[in-house]
């Protein structure tokens, strides 16, 4: 490995580069294919707020096997992966490297948003056998369709923002009932998304194992989630024998009998959009219900970030990203900003509702399911 010593003039680094075969080879992230065109850095949303350079990080890893703290800046939003001409998967590289870094170590923990409380909760959950979601619902226990709310209960518990997260679960159940699907309410542990992307593979693997068992025992054939992160994780990072869908994909073609005339805009969560390629379902669900969508300047594949994915880095830098996003939403003139990810919802709302705000955003921010359920019930007038 690298043996670094200071030289006489400037910095001269002596590297014994050649001890064994380079570990970067054959990584699924393909980073060895990088020809340093720098498009990733130029397109990176985080680069708009932090001096991050995926190009340099990849290059250093490729050439010198050098680590870079830059991996902690990445939001793994996949914009660079989507656009990379060589198909280099930088977010995957980031995840692999974070995993190698022993996230629990001193440096890493402080980087994770909210002092890592959510991370800690998940860690604890692994060891507490009976730990389940705090929402006490059952639904139709014999249904082959299961609804999984994710960590909405924790968010209600720990986020001091003007959002009723539980409402997402209630609205989801209501809409699924409306479609005649009569779902079971799944009692599971945290899906482990944040642990996975923060690099805590040990916790993730345990959560995955425990949840997989719970799902198998539940007897369901289709798992519905209202959270973009859960959707990505359960369908991509688990090896489940059942079908996993995001609720928007069911709502896409559903006839809910809603005739809303609200002008909305839609924020693509990175996990549902770029990670899973689902851009149309939530939009179709909205337009089928009569809503009109005014797109933000950056939408679908080019959508900008909420700045918080995986609970990395909630700070003034990521807030800058949120401001940019909220400004774009403001420019649309829409009445409601719709999201499909509770984390986007939490953080965008957090900024909108902050005390003594310098910016004033008139529109509402709502989860897709909550919006549709409200329109269904005529709650708009409340």
């Amino acid at each position, binding site marked *: 490995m690298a043996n670094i010593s200071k030289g006489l003039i400037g910095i001269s680094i002596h590297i014994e580069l050649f001890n064994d075969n380079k570990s970067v*080879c054959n990584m699924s992230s393909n980073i060895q294919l990088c020809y340093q065109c720098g498009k990733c850095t130029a397109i990176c949303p985080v680069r708009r707020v932090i001096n991050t350079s995926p190009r340099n990080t990849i290059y250093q890893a490729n050439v010198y096997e050098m680590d870079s703290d830059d991996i902690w800046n990445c939001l793994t939003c996949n914009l660079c992966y989507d656009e990379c001409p060589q198909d280099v998967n930088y977010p995957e590289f980031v995840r692999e490297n974070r995993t190698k870094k022993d996230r629990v170590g001193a440096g890493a923990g402080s980087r994770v948003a909210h002092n890592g409380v959510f991370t800690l909760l998940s860690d604890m959950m692994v060891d507490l056998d009976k730990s389940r979601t705090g929402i006490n619902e059952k639904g139709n226990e014999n249904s082959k369709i299961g609804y999984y709310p994710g960590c909405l209960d924790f968010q209600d518990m720990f986020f001091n923002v003007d959002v009723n997260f539980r409402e997402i679960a209630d609205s989801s159940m209501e809409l699924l009932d409306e479609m005649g699907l009569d779902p079971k309410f799944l009692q599971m542990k945290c899906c482990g998304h944040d642990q996975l992307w923060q690099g805590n593979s040990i916790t993730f693997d345990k959560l995955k194992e425990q949840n997989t068992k719970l799902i198998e025992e539940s007897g369901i054939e289709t798992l519905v989630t209202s959270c973009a992160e859960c959707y990505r994780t359960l369908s991509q990072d688990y090896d489940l024998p059942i079908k996993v869908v995001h609720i928007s994909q069911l709502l896409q073609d559903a006839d809910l009998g809603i005739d809303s005339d609200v002008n909305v805009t839609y924020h693509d969560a990175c996990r549902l959009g770029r990670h899973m390629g689902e851009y149309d379902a939530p939009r179709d669900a909205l337009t089928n219900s009569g809503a009109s969508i005014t797109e933000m300047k950056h939408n679908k594949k080019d959508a900008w970030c909420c700045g918080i994915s995986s609970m990395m880095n909630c700070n003034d830098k990521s807030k800058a990203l949120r401001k940019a996003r909220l400004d774009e939403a403001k420019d649309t003139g829409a009445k409601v900003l719709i999201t499909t990810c509770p984390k986007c919802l939490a953080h965008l709302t957090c900024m909108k509702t902050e005390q003594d705000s310098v910016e004033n955003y008139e529109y509402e921010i709502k989860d897709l399911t909550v919006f549709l359920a409200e329109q269904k019930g005529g709650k708009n007038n409340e």
Partner: protein
Amino acid sequence: MSKLVGAIAVAGGGVAGIQSAIDLANNGLKVYLIESSTSIGGKMSQLDKTFPTLDCSMCTLSPKLAEVSRHPNIELLTYSEITGIEGEAGDFTVTVKKKPTFVDPDKCTACELCVSKCPVKVPDEYNEGGNDRKAIYLAFPQAVPRVYTIDAENCLYLTKGKCGKCVKVCENDAINYDDKGEEIEINVGSIILSTGFEPFDASQLEQYRIDHPDVVTSIQFERQLSSSGPFEGHVTLSDGTHPKKIAWIQCIGSRSPEIGRRNCSSVCCMYATKEATVAMEHDPDLETTIFNIDVRAFGKGFEEFYQKAKNKTGVRFIHSRPSGVEVDPQTNKLSLKYELEDSNGIRQEEFDMVVLSIGLTPSKSSKQLVNIAGVEMDDLGFVKTMIDRPVETTRHGIFVSGSMKAPKDIPDTVADASGAASKASSLLSSERGSLVTEKQYPSEKEIGDEVRTGVVVCRCGINIGNVVDVPNVVEYANGLSGVVFAKEEVYACSSDSIVGIADMVKEHDLNRVVVASCTPRTHEPLFRETLMEAGLNPYMFELANIREHCSWVHQHEKDKATKKARDTVRMSVSRANLLQPLYKERVEFDNSGLVIGGGIAGMNAALDIADKGFHVTLVEKMSELGGLLNTYTTLQDGRSTNEVLEPLIARVGSHDNLTVLIDTELVELEGSMGNFTAHLKGPGVDEKLRCGVCIIATGATELMPEGYFSYGKYPNIVTQSKLEHMIDEGISDNNVVFIQCAGGRNDERPYCSRACCTVAVKNAIRLKKDDPKRNVYILYRDIRTFGRWEDLYTQARELGVVFMRYTEDKEPEVGEKSIKMFDHLLNMDFDINYDLLVLSAPLVAPETNESLASIFKVPLDSNKFFLEAHIKLRPVEFANEGVFLCGTAQAPKLVDEAVSQASAAASRACTILSSDFLETIGNVSVVDPELCIGCGRCTLVCPYNAPELKEIVVETEEITYNTKKCEINPTICKGCGSCAVECPTGAITSRHFTESQIMAVIKAYGEGL
């Protein structure tokens, strides 16, 4: 093969198809040239200038278009597509569907009345939508054939049954709405596929915003630069103003596995550099930036062109790819965000215009044709070939050339096209002449004593017409002595104008013609032939160059340009009035060939000539055949060099028409095309061999990079060729470092050696496969694995080869065990330990090139490689007729390119060998022996070695003495007149530039003072 048909179908009328057709037709074979659009010319016809010489593309191409249209052995099937191919090599039946043009070409006079009345406007494909054309149209002014076509999709009558205006205005009843087209079957012995490429569709990459009017593709920009383009050569923004800042983004649709476009497109770096250079010539205040990944300036003269653009012209090159094109919603302005190359800084920069350098992709129609032809495609979507058989498809008798088999530039395409023609004509050599007819001209009419000169003044579209007052010049010409008729033409060289000139000669009983247009270099042969068709001697013609000499150089002084055009026309008429008929002579010749150099190029060239039934002698100075390839052990496709060389050497050794002389050198060459005598010397050989053509295939050698990167100082530093042998023998070195451009791309050798990046990457892959634990580092300046070889680069990266860029101002410093490397990305110095350092040294011209060049009297370029006649369109021939070149003698290249050129040289050479006799030109210089004093000055100035001093006995009244006198060999003489100027006694007369003619011109000039 039971039956052989002496005809060939060439699919695709771009520069590749055109070159194949001309070669085959001149080899005595019948050619059907099939083109799906309304005119031949292909993509080259749309280009403004060509790199690296900045020649006008159309100006070099249009004589070839005219040659095709006038060649008696070529049948042109435009607006036609191949729909079926049956049969086998030697006897194919090809079904061709001719689409309806709705205009009868025999009746149409191209008067354009229909065009002016047609109400339908359609985006003009030729100008890439930069302006509109009508529904009845000609693809471009120089289109061949000059046949108007109704676009059935947009014509109001054909779509809605309304309008019919063209029928009403057409005075010749040429419009036929009932045209259904037709399906014909042609019987051919062989087929050449050359349907080219399709530009990448930039709308697939939405983030680059091709929807914005000021974001254009490189081909659209090419039309913008062209004086025949939508803005007459003034680059124009959507708001009508001219840009001050233009950016090019490279690799749009290339080097992007993400979108399934893995290959490099080979030409984009150079065309972008060219476009930036030309745009800055138009507007010196313009700022240009080219965003690239590597600058791939790998061809002959390319690196020098790139360095000039960067260091002299001031084009900015940035190794970075912008994230996309951003459009400011308020101002609609364009900006690019990119990461700086030497730090991780980010810059957002505004540009007025963004040009997307779109790549070359296989066209949809090519894919259909490939299916019809039943030939295999490779995994990139191009036609599959082997590198040692670069023009042969997987189906016998069907050949392929140009960018249909991989993206390539014009000279490589032309070489390929001649190569494909060579293979096709070898197959059908026994049928040469069986299906062709010789062009017959009317007999020459008596010219009498009265001078009757006609003058045609060409507008060259707007090239001349917008600067020179053409009607004024016509009027002036009409008043000149000897002139009986003068008129103007929009394009004097267009097919209908040519017919018009012939008609003019007949109608006005002219005996001399002056065309005031462009350069005789490109257009004189065309007009001379026109005179022959009109029954005049071709030398009764004079060109007045009022484009290059008047409208182009004085474009801002219109009055002066017009006056100069009048002067020029007056001077030309004064000379024309004195022209006399000159006649060619037929000369016997030897129809055998001589190939110098027994490498892969020389062997292939010799075999191709021998396969056509001509005897050929292959001379190799070493004691074995194989040349440069003997120093390498593998090819870039993974095969061993022996796998290719051994069967080739065996074939060379056993061919009845081929004599091999090893250990033999050429020491002297006498004579000229058709009648060379080569003095060959070697142990046991000392013979004077007669031959009709010579091919120089003497190759190149790998530089021993003494003085570069400590080569020679430490034992563990080798070159790539040495490494190949070491790998074969087995090496244990764990840490292997390559340094590219070792001794190349510097002041001493400013060229790029083209092959080294591919060779290095190939060897890096071998090292990694040999031992995956081994570390391989490649220190490079630009990785130039062009075209399909980009796949090797990707594969090397996949295997874990590490690539680090260095710059010429901070080269790696090599110590005994480690290399000090400045990493410009990290802005730090690093030490890299190595067990083995491999230098990628350039191929260099052998020292013997200079003596060989003087033996052949052919030029070398500044890097001492042989210099071809024209870098774009005549890549394998010399100006000195009868002498050809191929392989690395011309410039460094890869094996497939050398083989393709070898076949091309053979094809070009056989156009001479397959003729029945040689003809001299008429305008040679002649010596009056009585005036010649044998001083020999003429021999010093002749570029072609035409004058020869021969011993003679002079007998006078009283004194008889031995002396020498000059004789000029008419088969060599090009009539340049240098000897006539030099001759101190006036013994030599250049027959087409006599003293009286020149004096008349000078006198005519004086009249204008």
